[in-house]
């Protein structure tokens, strides 16, 4: 390897230094997924409140499960993301 190539690799290492993520990233994640989680909970709650006897009966048909399953899925991913945020916060506290 020539000295020019070595120098170029040094320059590349300088130009492409790792970048630390900003602290607001974990806060942003937290806010985003808290909102999604709350929205999913509201959706589930509102949907359950609206149910009549006949609708409850119709829920025995799996073809009618799409709406609650979608709401649960949104809540699920939000929960996962909140786990992430927890990791981030805990690791920040340990520093």
């Amino acid at each position, binding site marked *: 390897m*020539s*000295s*020019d*190539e070595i*120098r*170029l*690799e*040094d*320059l*590349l*290492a*300088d*130009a*492409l*230094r*790792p*970048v*630390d*993520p*900003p602290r*607001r*990233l974990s806060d*942003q*994640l937290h806010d*985003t997924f808290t909102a*999604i989680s709350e929205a999913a909970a509201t959706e589930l709650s509102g949907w359950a409140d609206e149910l009549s006897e006949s609708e409850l009966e119709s829920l025995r048909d799996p073809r009618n499960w799409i709406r609650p399953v*979608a709401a649960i*899925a*949104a809540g*699920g*991913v*939000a*929960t*996962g*993301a909140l*786990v*992430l945020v927890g*990791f*981030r916060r805990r*690791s920040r506290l340990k520093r």
Partner: protein
Amino acid sequence: MSEPEPKLLPGESRAEIERDFEQLYRDHLRDVYSYSYYRIGNHHDAEDLTEQTFLQAWRHFPRARRESDGRPLRPWLIRIAHNLASNYYRDRSRRPQTPLDSVEPPSAKHSTEDLVEGRAELRAVIEHLQELPDDRREALVMRFSLGMDNREIARAMGKSDGATKVLIHRAIKQLQERLEASGEFGDGIPGAEKEDDE
């Protein structure tokens, strides 16, 4: 948002999955963010891409963990970021911006003259990096920003080890040629000693 919870197989412990994912997150948050930043070129979208990458990783983590057979998961994580970044460009039809604002003079330089020269060279390197084909630029980001070896880069890019080695070699060569042609490096710098390649 439609991503469901990750699917666990019977016998898999959720606590164990969460613990391993936490470790992955701690180990590679900076890698994913750095990759995203150099792909996208601004902090705002890099944050968004990092967030989306870890969300998608969380969704598929149990399966990736099972199939990794003990191999590092960083290439898998970077591949997720790579795919999301590709979608980002396709959706928004834009190219990365040059992150010149983050460039500082190299720490190893000493004299004022060296500092000025070093800064100019760095800027030139970054500018010409942006002109490289996407796969070459990306391979250089993985190598020099994330410190990935050829095998990891190959897995992240879905290429063979040999093809990756050639890709990186050509990327460096092309960058060097562009810098020299523009008079911003090596023989092109006034007063630099000319090396005989023959």
